[in-house]
């Protein structure tokens, strides 16, 4: 118990003193995860809308597959992205391995199933008559999809927040494709992993507390914006 308390104090100390390396990795965590979540949402929410809206053969199968990938292990995604972007890999000429850019890509791939699947779930909760109403009022397909998304906005928003949560808390992918390079690709989660392995448990716990606090602050901000809307 005293170890946890010491860790908590250490966390407060690091935050209050604005320890530069810790602020650096905190900012990096936030930045990379927020970017990947926003970019992935921009793709997945409309895409989820379209999948939900149209009927086509194999739709249920597709949704099943999407839901299966909820449990995609982060190391697997990391491995896949590594093999793709390694210099000898098909996308190697971009040379973005071991950079924050490839970490964003990795996280986007990781959270796409959740964003897609939960968006489709959210939209399925909207009364079918809304779809008919919007169409009969003269909406084009895109306008109708947008109207349905707006109707389900709380649930869709929850999906995005969930996606962010998964992105900001994952280690496997970030480690594999980022290399945990100090000052460059080290994030809160990979730093925690490293410090743990090095035996610096107190510091690792402190970083963990900071990570959770970060997530808490994000959620509070997000919720406040949501209320006003």
């Amino acid at each position: 118990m005293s170890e946890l308390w010491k860790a908590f104090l250490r966390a407060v100390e690091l935050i209050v003193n604005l320890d530069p390396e810790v602020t650096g990795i905190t900012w990096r965590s936030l930045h990379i995860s927020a970017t990947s979540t926003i970019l992935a949402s921009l793709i997945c929410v409309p895409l989820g809308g379209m999948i939900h809206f149209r009927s086509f053969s194999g739709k249920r199968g597709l949704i099943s597959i999407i839901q299966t990938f909820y449990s995609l292990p982060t190391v697997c995604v990391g491995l896949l992205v590594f093999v793709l972007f390694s210099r000898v890999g098909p996308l190697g000429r971009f040379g973005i391995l071991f950079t924050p850019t490839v970490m964003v890509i990795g996280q986007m791939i990781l959270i796409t199933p959740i964003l897609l699947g939960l968006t489709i779930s959210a939209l399925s909760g909207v009364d079918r008559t809304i779809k008919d109403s919007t169409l009969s009022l003269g909406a084009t397909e895109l306008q109708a999809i947008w109207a349905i998304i707006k109707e389900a906005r709380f649930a869709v928003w929850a999906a995005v927040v969930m996606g962010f949560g998964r992105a900001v808390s994952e280690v496997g992918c970030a480690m594999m494709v980022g290399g945990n390079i100090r000052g460059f690709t080290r994030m809160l989660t990979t730093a925690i992993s490293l410090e743990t392995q090095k035996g610096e448990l107190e510091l690792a716990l402190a970083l963990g507390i900071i990570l959770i606090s970060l997530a808490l602050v994000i959620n509070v901000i997000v919720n406040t914006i949501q209320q006003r809307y």
Partner: protein
Amino acid sequence: MGSKIKKVLSVGLILVLISTLMASSAKEAVAQGDVSTPKKVPLLPKMERLRVATTTSLYDTGLWSYLEPMFEQKYGVELDIVYAGTGIALQYGKRGDVDVLTIHDRVREDKFIREGYGVNRRCIAYNYFLIAGPESDPAGIKGMLPEDAFKRLMEEGKKNPEKAKFISRGDNSGTHAKEKAIWLKAGYEYESVQKSGSWYVEAGRGMGPTLLMASEMQTYTLTDKGTFLAYKGNLKLIPLVEKGKILLNVYAALAVNPEKHPKVNVKMANNLINFLISDEVQRLIGEYGVETYGMQLFTPCGGGKCKEIGCPTWEECAKPAEWPIK
């Protein structure tokens, strides 16, 4: 909130995020030391980068953190140091994902060069492996030769798997390769060792973490002296077997062959290699840790010491690395 305002805000937010992401690809230069002793160096614009895959023992001892800022300042580049076991470091080298390797497995390094993946190998430093274990030494291996110690560990381990355990790196690192070599000398096929019982534990982690694990579980393990000294304060282990030619541990740096991977930053790679074998840095390596730990963690190859380890003259090793090789 008007919907137009909302749209503008969201687009703005996205642009801000993406642009700062690109800007932050320029690494924040961080001074030496670990997290607890930070020193902020001003943020530099996007710079040339050099990627180094290093064996874990060079990293866990803090040697790289010590040398990194020196090199960066001197050449104005960003050094990206990727922590990897020798196994994965060689993979990175083969794939051209890094520019330089600093590892410690002569056999595999030679193979790497022979197959055309690496060039300009230079010895940097050396130390010795040792077998560490609990103070009580339940298997009684103190003072033995490494091969004999391993034989004894195998016997005792099989008899008393709870009392006499051995933790292996189990990760294809240079240290792991050395361990396998000792088993071979002791007369065992490695596969049979792996299957010999619960006394033999494969950790799959770097040197520092493995030492911590061994200390926690009070077991034996093979480690290089540098990392052992660096972690000694945290360990409840003592060195038990320190003598034996087989325990020689030589660290070398090599550049990835630009013929295989033209995009490799071979010029700067050579700069790094030459930096590491320069007289000044060799001296610094020799002095590293003496104040803190009371003795050298690494013995530099320069200064005539390589004769001790059976190398040819230093002059040959000290030949500057260049590309193309004339």
